[in-house]
């Protein structure tokens, strides 16, 4: 129960972060990807700040040496599904202006484009999931 509440709070903070940063706005995301147009560097700062705070969490988890914390996940090879899958994702990201997180949060805001993106995304996740077991991340 306590850990479920913790996950709920984490989800709320995650959603609030995407709203405050403006990343729920697909126009802002496309503005970051638009290198040859008017480039909006905002997303890079969002990533930098988020990585910094996550790194602190990773350090804290490592110090506790909690076996439940996957801070030292077994290294898997850099393989074709990783690279080709990421390229597919990047194309879809550029075309729609949505990655999975903002699509979920903006759906809660009843923003119809996010709902349409999710209607495409869920079958995509299901189809790819049939090719092999999920490995976390």
């Amino acid at each position, binding site marked *: 129960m306590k850990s479920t509440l913790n996950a709920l709070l984490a*989800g709320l903070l*995650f959603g609030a972060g995407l709203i405050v940063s403006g990343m729920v706005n697909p126009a802002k995301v496309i503005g970051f990807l638009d290198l040859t147009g008017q480039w909006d560097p905002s*997303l890079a700062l969002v990533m930098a700040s988020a990585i910094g705070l996550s790194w602190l*969490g990773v350090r804290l988890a490592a110090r506790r040496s909690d076996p439940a914390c996957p801070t030292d996940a077994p290294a898997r090879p850099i393989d074709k599904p990783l690279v080709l899958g*990421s390229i597919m994702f990047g194309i879809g990201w550029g075309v729609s202006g949505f990655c999975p997180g903002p699509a979920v949060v903006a759906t809660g805001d009843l923003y119809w484009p996010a709902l349409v993106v999710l209607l495409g995304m869920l079958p995509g996740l299901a189809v790819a999931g049939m090719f092999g077991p999920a490995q976390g991340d």
Partner: protein
Amino acid sequence: MDIAWTLFTPWHSLAGGALIGLAASLLLLGNGQIAGISGILGNLLKPEGRAPWRLAFLAGMVLAPLLLWPVMAQIAPSPVETPELNGSTLIRLLAGGFLVGLGTRFANGCTSGHGVCGLARFSPRSLVAVLSFMGAGFVTVALWRLVNGGVSL
């Protein structure tokens, strides 16, 4: 490359990013889990993946805009623009979403799992993933601009 200084919102970016990083840390320390949204969604699609923490995290994400709705105009850096509802927009969003779902599942992660949590752990796999999806995103929008004469929602 022209930097759009009028669109750049550094303080909102830093504050929002901090909240995202805080959320990822909270989930790691309290649940021992990685805040990867594509993984959470993909696992929830399967009966054996429906763990309470995944449902709770997702519920929190969906509830965030409802709870913040009264102050949305004060905390968001700019109003969210809405594209015109027509056939080509629907096809673009559906096809884009499908590629996002397919690709993130094959790669085992998206902007959150690889981009935030993976890079915070200095994972080489995540670095390769981020360079691949950002590169593909840059090329996609550049081609879109080239073919269409501009980009819009």
